[in-house]
Every structure is written in C-alpha cells, then in structure tokens.
C-alpha cells in the first residue's frame, strides 16, 4: 500500500482525526486519552456500518485486529488500515513482524511497550491529546482530538559536539567521520544506549536512522531526560535519504517530499529500505555509484562533502 490517508471518526460524544502515511503508526500516551475508545469506534463501525451511529471518513477500509484468529483475519485483509489495541498479545511476536513485512496494509498500533521486531519511524509515534478547551467543550459534548508528534528531535542551537556517534557502521559512518573531527560507530541501533553511557561526560551528537529507530527512541529519551549528559539526537530518515537530498544526484522532489506515494509497504518494511534501493538504482551508472557497505570515494570529495553537509541542520554543520 502507498499513500497518505486522513482518518476522521466520530460519534455524538468524541471526534478523532489522524493521518497515517506509512506502514506502521504507533499510538501511546497517558491513560484516559481515548486510545481504546478510538479502537472501539473503528470496531463498532466495522461491524455495523452507518447504523452504528458512528461516522468514519477515510479513503481506505479501516479494520480492527484482535487476538481472535488474528493470523487468519490478517491474511484476508488487503489495502486496509488495520487498528490493533495493546490488549492484543501477538504484536510482539516474530510471526506478526514477518506478516507486517510484505503486507499491503497499514497498521495503527496502540502500545506503550517498544516493538523491537518492527522497523517503525520516530516520526510515526503519536500521543492522543484533547485539543478542546474545557471552557468551550463542556461535559457531554464532543471532544476533538488530534495527533501530535511525541519526539521533537530538532537539535538545539549551537551544537558543537566533542564526539559524534553514528548508528551506522558502514557508508554513513565513513561519511560522517570525514565531516566531524571525532566520530565513532555504535555498530547498530541497539548499541546506541551503551555508546552514550560510555561517553556521557562528553558533549555528544548521536546520528540515527529515524526511519526505523522508533523502538529505541523511548529508552534513549528516557535516559536523556535524566540530564546525565549533554546529548543531541539527530534522526534523519537514513543516510541514503541525506544523499538523495544533497543534490549530488538528480532526484525528483516527490521522492523526498512524498515518499509515502512511492515506498510501497508490500516491498519495503521501512522508508530506509526504500531510499537505499532507490539510491543504488539511481547511482548505478554514475560516478556516485552507491554501496551501503563501502562508501564510494567520490562522496568524500570536498564538493560532495559540502553538499552532504548542507543537508544537515544548521546547528550541526
């Protein structure tokens, strides 16, 4: 499935808006913010349609997957936005992760626990909040909710890191080690915490692939909130995304700005995979022929590095 979809669902008491634009969206947040109520509305609409008294506006079919015969039901769904509540115990299983990979459905999952088997983006973790002021919407009136992004990863101003830690150990690390004076690799996203802990006395810049870092971000932000160290997280979609955005190659704007229209969930488990494949194909016959394992030396030339640096936020250039 490709595309970006607005979902609006309401009855005479509550009213939800949300937007999904890739295969996995995670909903979390405080108790009593309406997550389970949202799932209940989708479920009742699915079972009873308009006669439920619920209105659901979405270009795609919306469905709720529960513990009951979930694998069988999922196999029957196609081009559907699938809602799953935290009461479904299969969401942490390897089998579920296998079925999400290659599915032509989008998934909206309510969970506070990290789903380490799924490659979801830091940008697709949302909390439901009430946007109605109590003075305007009193008791027994509709509550309008909107989705907000939980993690604001925009770096603070004037970041002059003493050490840069990259999640990537291959091309991304090779490039960043030419841009920053002191750069090390954590050798994978699951080692980022250890790397930060080990160097907590330094001023740190940590560069991760945001497109699949969702399962780790809660832990890292939980640690950083303790103010044990000065550390900024920079989470672009991926290193390949930076290259594509750098204008070293001729990349149509839509590929970058409307990736949701191209990264088919059936083929790509995350946008990181999409950007990687796109870059490899695009650069094949050029001097910038790209390989994830070994960075082509033409990316390390002065002009190329300047263009790559230009993509980074001002505060860390």
């Amino acid at each position, binding site marked *: 499935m490709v595309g970006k979809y607005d979902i609006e669902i309401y009855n005479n008491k509550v009213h939800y808006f949300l937007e999904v634009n890739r295969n996995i969206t995670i909903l979390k947040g405080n108790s009593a913010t309406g997550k389970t109520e949202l799932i209940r509305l989708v479920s009742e609409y699915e079972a009873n349609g308009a006669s439920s008294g619920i209105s659901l506006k979405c270009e795609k079919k919306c469905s709720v997957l529960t513990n009951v015969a979930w694998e069988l039901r999922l196999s029957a769904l196609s081009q559907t936005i699938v809602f799953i509540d935290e009461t479904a115990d299969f969401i942490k299983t390897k089998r579920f992760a296998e079925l999400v990979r290659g599915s032509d459905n989008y998934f909206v999952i309510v969970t506070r*626990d990290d789903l380490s088997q799924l490659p979801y983006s830091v940008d697709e973790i949302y909390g439901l909040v009430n946007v109605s002021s109590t003075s305007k919407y009193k008791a027994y009136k509709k509550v309008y909710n909107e989705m907000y992004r939980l993690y604001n990863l925009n770096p603070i101003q004037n970041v002059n890191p003493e050490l840069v830690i990259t999640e990537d150990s291959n091309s991304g690390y090779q490039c960043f080690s030419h841009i920053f004076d002191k750069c090390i690799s954590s050798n994978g996203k699951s080692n980022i915490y250890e790397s930060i802990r080990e160097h907590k006395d330094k001023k740190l810049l940590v560069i991760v692939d945001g497109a699949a870092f969702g399962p780790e971000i809660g832990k890292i932000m939980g640690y950083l909130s303790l103010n044990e160290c000065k550390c900024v997280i920079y989470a672009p979609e991926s290193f390949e995304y930076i290259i594509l955005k750098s204008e070293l190659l001729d990349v149509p704007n839509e590929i970058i700005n409307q990736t949701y229209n191209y990264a088919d969930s059936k083929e790509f488990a995350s946008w990181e995979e999409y950007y990687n494949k796109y870059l490899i194909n695009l650069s094949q016959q050029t001097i910038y022929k790209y390989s994830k394992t070994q960075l082509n030396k033409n990316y390390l030339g002065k002009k190329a590095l300047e263009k790559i640096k230009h993509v980074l936020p001002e505060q860390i250039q």
Partner: protein
Amino acid sequence: MLKIYFGEFEADNYIFNPDVYFNNTYEDEWIVDKISVEMIKDIDGSKVMGPRLIDSPFLGSIPVERLSGGVKTLILMNNDDSHVFNASACGDNCAKWILKIAENKDIMIRLGYLMDFGDASFEVEIVNTRKLVHSQKELVIEVLDNKLI
C-alpha cells in the same frame, strides 16, 4: 513496597490484559472505595455516582466497564493481591497512584516501558535483578544497563 518485573513475564497468576480481567472480576465495593473514587477522578476526570454508574465529562453516563484501562488496572492492583498485573496498560499519569497503593502493601507489577515515576524519591525493587532503586534515575539506569526492556 513496589516490586517491578521489566520485560516479558510469564506466570500462572500474570494478567496480561487487566482491562478485560477487570470487567469480569470487579466487585461493586471496589468502585466506591475512597481511593478508587479519587483515582477515577484524577485519571479519567470522571465522577463515581454509584457502584454501577460513572459520570464521564466526555462520554456521559457510562458503566464501570467503560473506565480507562489504566484506572481499571490501578483498581485491580489495590484490590486483588493474588495476581501480577501488566502495568503497561497504565500511562505515566498512573505512576503516582501505583506508588501510593504500594505504600500500604507489597505489590508486584510487570512493565514493558520506562514509566515516569516523577522526581520524588521512592523505593522500588527491580525483580529481575533484585536491586532496590530510589529514584527515577536509578530505575532507568538499572533497566537499561541490564537490557531488561
């Protein structure tokens, strides 16, 4: 004292889905208990009208079964000592109530995320490592250093 098991927990008395368990096991007197009334007011913003009726500012008059999963789990923790409940059903706004319930008795819960227990000091046993922690900082570091989640 509060004891927390982090990560995937397996035991015969473990309740993964406290929401459904509550619906099928709660007693009327649990709802009108003073601390339940306070928790329902604080977490859900709702008023207990009686053992079988809740006045919700958003949903109107609702049965007890429509309380939030978080507050249902808190009520279970306070009233059912024979089970270990999945506290991932509770958001950060439930943390102070979990600590309060544990002031008067030993309770063990399971967590799969870093619940924010606030800035004040507390005493919690991390069951996986049998370590006592006394602040959010100690808790976070103990959990992450040992890769418990």
